[in-house]
């Protein structure tokens, strides 16, 4: 009996030791992740997709036979309308309405810009937004990586080999929509990235914290998207509901004090914030950091630099130097030592950078755009394309990292408005073809419905982009001294006392004087004692 008990105990011990084995093995030798089946439907089996498609809308019609409400859902989103009314400022925004200081604006340039529209055929201001088959399902649901919407085709894919621009001799190869449609699946970093990595006209150009390095990033580039680790997609944070994707650059959540988003909890806000998963006091070891988190956005410390994936982002863009030609009258392209374009006749001068330290500002989530209806004045100060609201005292602001993009762009010095030039387009007035502002501007202004005086000049502008992607692993988060030092990253941040940055100079001088006098006093006294003792 006793022996059996001992045997049983031993066996149990062994079993528990064995059971603890795999956990140990996992630490030393990571197992490859199993392939996830993300769909219950094999689209190759669907009759509707087993045919040749000559155009995008034909595919969409097939999709809608089963997904009857999908197009209607898309029709309600910013991705479709490119128009958004900010409920706080009542400004009508969206890609259709705002200007920036990159490629400037969409009016008169639709056929090129709308290669990133979730639709087909938006070639001018008369696009029919009510047509269901105009919705592009594939651009977000492609899993093959072969789907392309080349600029100049108004968001349409090219299904037959096509010479473009006509007469150029350059052939755009046609793609097989049938094969692509049969392989649709969930959206991925690649599908979102096909547009969002390329904002501003190229890889990493606009955002700096979003570029193709996030397609399959290492842990160092993004701790959440780490392709061999957590492997988040964009949608893991930007949770969509009825095809509406959470998160906004027009109404960002600067301060989220709602804590973790529990399913079913009423009044939940933006699910894409850090707090939505990490809560408001996420630092377990160092409580002091949680008190930092009441005034400082997580991104400030956890994204020490942006453009970390080896792809440079544009930092400045000077349109005023555009239009030069070489001695043969041809367009000029200049590159730096790394092969990055620094000048193009079509666009002007650029500067680019990698591993960029952000600038910092108090930000409360209010963004006010300078629109075509707003008067602007040329001065020493740069004209803000967007004004980021915030102050240390409003109780709603946090210190945020920003990419501040500075440039120079055309404006009307008589009417005192920004200008929407006609840039893209294979026609006589497109600036990118003929380098003639006098032709390009009236066409663009007419399309945007803005009065134009006939005179143009260049005005210095700046635009702020809150940095929120490329979250570093915690051991790579910013150290204290980046801010707590005389030469502080937060040098421009007012309204908060930073130990080591804001030491009171007067107190320091007085303090050291007293200390020094005391020291001199005791040295003098001591010397005198030694001297007089010898005498005595």
């Amino acid at each position: 009996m006793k022996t059996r008990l001992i045997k049983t105990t031993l066996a149990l011990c062994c079993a528990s030791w064995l059971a603890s084995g795999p956990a140990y093995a996992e630490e030393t030798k990571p197992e490859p992740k199993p392939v996830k089946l993300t769909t219950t439907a094999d689209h190759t089996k669907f009759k509707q997709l087993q045919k040749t498609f000559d155009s995008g809308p034909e595919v969409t019609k097939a999709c809608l036979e089963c997904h009857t409400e999908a197009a209607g859902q898309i029709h309600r989103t910013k991705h479709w309308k490119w128009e958004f009314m900010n409920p706080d400022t009542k400004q009508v925004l969206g890609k259709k309405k705002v200007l920036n200081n990159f490629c400037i604006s969409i009016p008169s340039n639709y056929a090129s810009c709308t290669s990133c529209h979730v639709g087909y055929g938006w070639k001018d201001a008369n696009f029919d937004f009510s047509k269901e088959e105009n919705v592009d399902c594939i651009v977000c649901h492609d899993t093959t990586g072969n789907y392309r919407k080349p600029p100049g085709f108004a968001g349409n894919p090219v299904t037959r080999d096509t010479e473009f621009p006509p007469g150029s001799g350059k052939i755009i190869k046609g793609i097989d929509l049938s094969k692509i449609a049969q392989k649709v699946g969930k959206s991925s970093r690649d599908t979102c990235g096909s547009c969002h990595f390329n904002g501003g006209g190229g890889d990493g150009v606009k955002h700096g914290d979003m570029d193709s390095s996030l397609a399959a990033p290492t842990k160092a580039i993004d701790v959440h998207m780490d392709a061999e680790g957590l492997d988040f997609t964009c949608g893991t944070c930007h949770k969509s509901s009825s095809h509406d994707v959470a998160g906004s650059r027009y109404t960002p959540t600067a301060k989220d004090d709602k804590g973790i988003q529990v399913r079913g909890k009423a009044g939940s806000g933006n699910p894409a914030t850090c707090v939505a998963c990490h809560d408001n006091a996420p630092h377990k070891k160092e409580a002091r950091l949680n008190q930092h988190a009441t005034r400082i956005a997580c991104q400030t410390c956890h994204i020490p630099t942006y453009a970390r994936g080896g792809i440079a982002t544009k930092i400045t863009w000077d349109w005023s130097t555009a239009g030069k030609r070489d001695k043969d009258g041809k367009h000029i392209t200049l590159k730096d030592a790394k092969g990055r374009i620094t000048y193009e006749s079509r666009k002007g001068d650029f500067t680019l950078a990698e591993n960029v330290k952000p600038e910092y500002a108090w930000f409360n989530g209010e963004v006010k755009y300078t629109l075509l209806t707003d008067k602007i004045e040329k001065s020493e100060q740069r004209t803000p394309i967007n004004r980021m609201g915030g102050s240390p005292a409003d109780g709603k602001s946090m210190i945020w990292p920003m990419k501040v993009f500075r440039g120079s762009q055309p404006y009307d010095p008589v009417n005192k408005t920004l200008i929407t030039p006609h840039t893209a387009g294979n026609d006589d007035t497109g600036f990118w073809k003929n380098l003639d502002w006098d032709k390009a501007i009236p066409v663009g202004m007419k399309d945007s419905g803005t009065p134009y005086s006939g005179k143009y000049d260049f005005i210095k502008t700046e635009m702020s982009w809150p940095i929120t992607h490329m979250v570093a692993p915690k051991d790579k988060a910013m150290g204290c001294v980046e801010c707590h030092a005389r030469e502080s990253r937060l040098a421009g941040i007012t309204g908060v006392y930073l130990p080591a940055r804001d030491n009171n100079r007067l107190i320091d001088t007085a303090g050291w004087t007293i200390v020094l006098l005391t020291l001199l006093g005791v040295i003098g006294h001591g010397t005198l004692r030694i001297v007089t003792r010898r005498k005595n």
Partner: protein
Amino acid sequence: MSERIYVFKRFERFWHWSQAALIIFLMLTAFDIHGVYSIFGFEKAVAYHSTAAWTLIGLWVFAIFWHFTTGEWKQYIPTTEKVVAMMNYYLFGIFKNAPHPFRLTTLRKHNPLQRLAYLFILVCVGPLLWVTGGLYLFYDKWAAWGLGNLSLEWVATGHTIGAFMMLAFLIAHVYLTTAGHTPMAHIKAMITGWEEVD
């Protein structure tokens, strides 16, 4: 003919030296945090400074208990008696080999100037450092404690003023330990507990 008296009891000596070590370490880390130099670096200095502060608070709990239970707190009651004589001694007498105007006993182990200096540290510098330091430690609780309007800048500045005064005191204090019958007499007494008196 000199005699030896037992002035500093075992706990008192332990208290003195451990407090001295803690205060010196606090200063070392303090001026690191202040950005004067970088020995530990800001991050570690802050962590060490906080730990040392909590340790010192713990030590004080024992020290305060000891002072009240033994009645030794009376040693800090200020007196004006012989203050002038002491000042004269430090300013003139000490250089002429004049006799020390104060004869210490176990009931009066601090000379009148010491009493005043220690009392100043206990009543002014100490509380300034404790209050501002304590507030600093609990910065995140201010709003919850109804202190939302308190200015971190004022708290920090107060703490810095206290630190400078403590440093000046430390320098003078260390020097004056050499002003006994022999330069090492007071220091020996603080180590062994026994002081030689005339």
